[in-house]
């Protein structure tokens, strides 16, 4: 009991703190409310606090431009405290009590999965900004982060074709995102003719800190003279000790490159990156992208947060895209009514930060470029490769037997998130 009430007290404390830092003037009448559902305490605060601040900045900027539909936007910030059931509770509070028009939030897949039934039941909108494992498409969710074919598959293609890797270590944290992604990657590699004995799969617990044996094993696996690469879906905190161990055991990126899907500028700002130079990451945005939009975004962010040290990262860009899409869709629909906005969203196209345009697809995923960057000693990435055009997000992977026949299209008349093209049936939620 004490535990619960303490947590709540701390949550409330964090919320008031967040409210204090909010610059949006709170006027009750005639505003459009936007919910921000990111953990400000608990384990995920490390990543999600930044996204809350990003949303506040974007809402501020929009208000300076005159708001939406002539009304001012008002951010409603809640703190789900890295507690998955609390995500559902807070989402309900945002929709039922605060009457928000849309929610921007969630980070981990499990938090999204816990919000999903609430948002579908109450028919609201969620913008989810993080790369994820795919295999999902809800009428009420817009996925602005990468699906596996917008991050994992291109990264493996790069390693295969440009780096010449023939042996593969798939290392990940033991939960749904790495398991699903590795299943897709393994199927993909086997499909490309990589023999089973050249694929090593390894899972570690959350926050794993002792990487000695695993790194030794990877070193051994990569010592056969054939080019070996590590595809890492290791989550957040466990990455630092992993990379430190690689460096200490003398595994350099030139021998065995590690490509990571969860390591960005924000994660790297936690430590000295000089031993990591050359290891790779695949994202749809890097802070080092050269474009005017990006320069403007970085300047705005650093002045909003009041520090020139702060970095930008891929999920922030996803919110930037998602928020601008929502604004455009609301203006197109002329209302904030969920069904009207949902219909207006499809086909909306807004500038992304890498100098192009991203548009919303009928499956509620977006088009993005895929970039491969190498870590530099200043904690930034040098982009060494990019896809020639935009890659369309695929909700259902073509490489998994159970989902290769599924497609998602939320436009009438199909209006289905998991339509099976062979049986011609829709097995889930419809309009």
């Amino acid at each position, binding site marked *: 009991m*004490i*535990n619960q009430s*303490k*947590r709540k007290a*701390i949550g409330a*404390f*964090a919320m008031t*703190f967040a409210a204090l830092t909010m610059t949006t003037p709170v006027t009750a009448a005639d505003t459009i409310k936007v919910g921000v559902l990111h953990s*400000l*305490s608990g*384990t995920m*605060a*490390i990543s999600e606090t930044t996204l809350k601040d990003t949303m506040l900045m974007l809402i501020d900027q929009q208000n300076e431009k005159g708001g939406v539909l002539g009304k001012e936007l008002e951010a409603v910030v809640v703190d789900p405290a890295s507690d998955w059931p609390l995500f559902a509770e807070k989402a309900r509070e945002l929709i039922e009590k605060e009457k928000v028009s849309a929610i921007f939030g969630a980070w981990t897949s499990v938090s999204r999965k816990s919000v999903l039934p609430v948002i579908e039941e109450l028919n609201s909108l969620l913008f989810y900004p993080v790369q994820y494992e795919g295999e999902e498409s809800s009428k009420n969710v817009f996925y602005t982060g990468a699906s596996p074919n917008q991050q994992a598959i291109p990264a493996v293609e790069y390693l295969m074709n440009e*780096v010449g890797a023939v042996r593969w270590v798939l290392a990940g944290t*033991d939960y749904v995102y790495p398991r699903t992604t590795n299943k897709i990657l393994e199927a993909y590699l086997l499909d490309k003719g990589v023999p089973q004995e050249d694929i090593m799969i*390894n*899972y*570690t*617990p959350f*926050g*794993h*800190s*002792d990487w*000695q*044996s*695993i790194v*030794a094993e990877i070193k051994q696996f990569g*010592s*056969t*003279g054939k080019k070996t690469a590590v595809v890492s879906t290791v989550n957040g*905190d466990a990455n*630092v*000790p992993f990379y*430190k*161990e690689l*460096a*200490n*055991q*003398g595994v350099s*990126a*030139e021998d065995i*490159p590690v490509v990571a899907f969860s390591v960005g500028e*924000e994660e790297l*700002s*936690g*430590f*000295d990156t000089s*031993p990591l*130079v*050359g290891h790779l990451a695949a994202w749809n945005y890097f802070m080092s992208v050269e474009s005017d939009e990006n*320069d403007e975004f970085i300047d705005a962010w650093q002045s909003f947060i009041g520090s*020139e040290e702060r970095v930008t990262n891929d999920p922030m860009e996803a919110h930037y895209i998602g928020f601008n899409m929502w604004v455009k869709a609301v203006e197109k629909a002329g209302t904030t009514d969920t069904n009207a906005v949902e219909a207006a969203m499809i086909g909306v196209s807004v500038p992304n930060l890498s100098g192009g345009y991203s548009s919303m697809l009928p499956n509620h995923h977006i088009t993005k470029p895929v970039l491969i960057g*190498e870590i*530099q*000693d*200043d904690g930034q990435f*040098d*982009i*060494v*490769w990019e896809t020639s055009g935009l890659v369309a997000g695929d909700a259902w992977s073509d490489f998994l037997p159970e989902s290769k026949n599924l497609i998602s299209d939320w436009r009438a008349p199909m209006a289905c998130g998991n339509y099976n093209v062979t049986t011609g049936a829709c097995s889930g939620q419809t309009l």
Partner: protein
Amino acid sequence: MVLVLSLLSVTAVASEDNELIQTLAPELLSKSKPKRLMAIDEIAASSAPRKALWLQAMIDGDLYQLKKTDEIVLATRQGNTYSLTKASDGTGLDSVKKRALRKIKIDNAMRSYLRSLIGTLALQSDDTEERFQAVYSLLGKVDSDAVEPIRKLKSQEKSERVHEAMGLLISIHDLENGTAEQQADAFEFVSGRLDNDVLNSLRRLSETSADKQVVAQAVMLLDEAESRKRWYTYIETLFFGVSLGSVLVVAAIGLAITFGVMGVINMAHGELIMLGAYTTYFIQQLMPSAIDYSLILAVPAAFIVSGSVGVLIERTVIRHLYGRKLETLLATFGISLLLQQAVRTFISPQNVAVINPSWMTGSWVVNPALSLTLNRLVIIAFCLFVFAVLLFVLTRTRFGLQTRAVAQNRQMARAMGIRSARVDAMTFGLGSGVAGIAGVALSQLGNVGPNLGQSYIIDSFIVVVFGGVGSLWGTLVAGMSLGIGNKLLEPWAGAVLAKILLLVFIILFIQKRPSGLFPQRGRAVES
């Protein structure tokens, strides 16, 4: 007159050569990798005096083009700006922001190629270490054209180390590409060696060579090497186990005092470790130019910080709850959340960067098949040191005697004139201070952030309970056996299952022997 003229022309040529980097700018910045590689080759083949500098700058990521003037510059980062010198002649330029620069980017393949180019240049360096590194950077990468000059260099080489390394380099080449005689020499040279490049060469040879005798010889050497390598793998696993064990012991030993000796279920133990780690961070911020010594200063500082917080917690909260274990558990859990959120709010929810001093990075290479990482070695030594000091304090000093007396029978101790309240505060302070010291050590291994404590608290309790509450020796033995057990299981069970198996083992063990490996005996325990 003639002399002066020729001298002049030499300098003219040299400065012209130095303009090469400028003329190659479009190629170096081109999107096409082959073009960039060609430009690099051209630089390496040129006679420009500054070419080694350029190639090194490229590896280091310090070569840029100034957007405004298209000049190629060498840039060093200083805070948010970059200070510049012209690549062609080294003249200083005004500092600029990063956005004013266009980077000459390289990738892993190019970096490795550049390293071998620099290696070739450094083969003739006057510095022995540089020559040695140069030879190693070329292992397995030289072709028949490149190997001939190295043979010549080898015959002139005076340093034994470099001579040996050159022999290895040449042998690896000769194994596959040498004449029959050279191959025989190479076989002799590499016999008994465990270098990866050698083994790969032998492996290729055993698969591709048409000469049966060569294949047989290669296979024999390979088998021999493999069986020796297996031994080293066992030693390595043992090392991993001991090092994991010492991490567990370091993290748990403070708890062995607060929980073990005093019986306080201190859920804030992890946060006291975290405070120690943050202290390390702040000490490093205070002395950025002397990172190598920062840890030595951080140890006493962390002891004082965490120790004082510990005394404060004891005086304000725990003191009122002695004998009420459940309430203590809840109260200290509350304190732990409070400390975590305080760090999040007042410092940052992000992890902070704690730098490894140079004497803790890299590894001690025993032989090509076995190298022990330095940070782990230091932590093993540190763990044993802390253990020895604590054992001394608790068993050989007056304070230790009083602590044990109060722990065993408070009433009797008070009757003997021991100020039990003071001893409680001091003991809790000692345990907390040791947790702080653990934080200094752990900051060198993983993340330093608000969640640091959370990842060690459960393990710490397991170690103390498994070892036997109240026994320092128990903590040491328990930590080490859990570490070694974990590392023995990990290779075949995987990290997740290994942890589960160990937990199952501990559950069974505690069923059988509820008071751990080294149970406390005496009246206090029975009561």
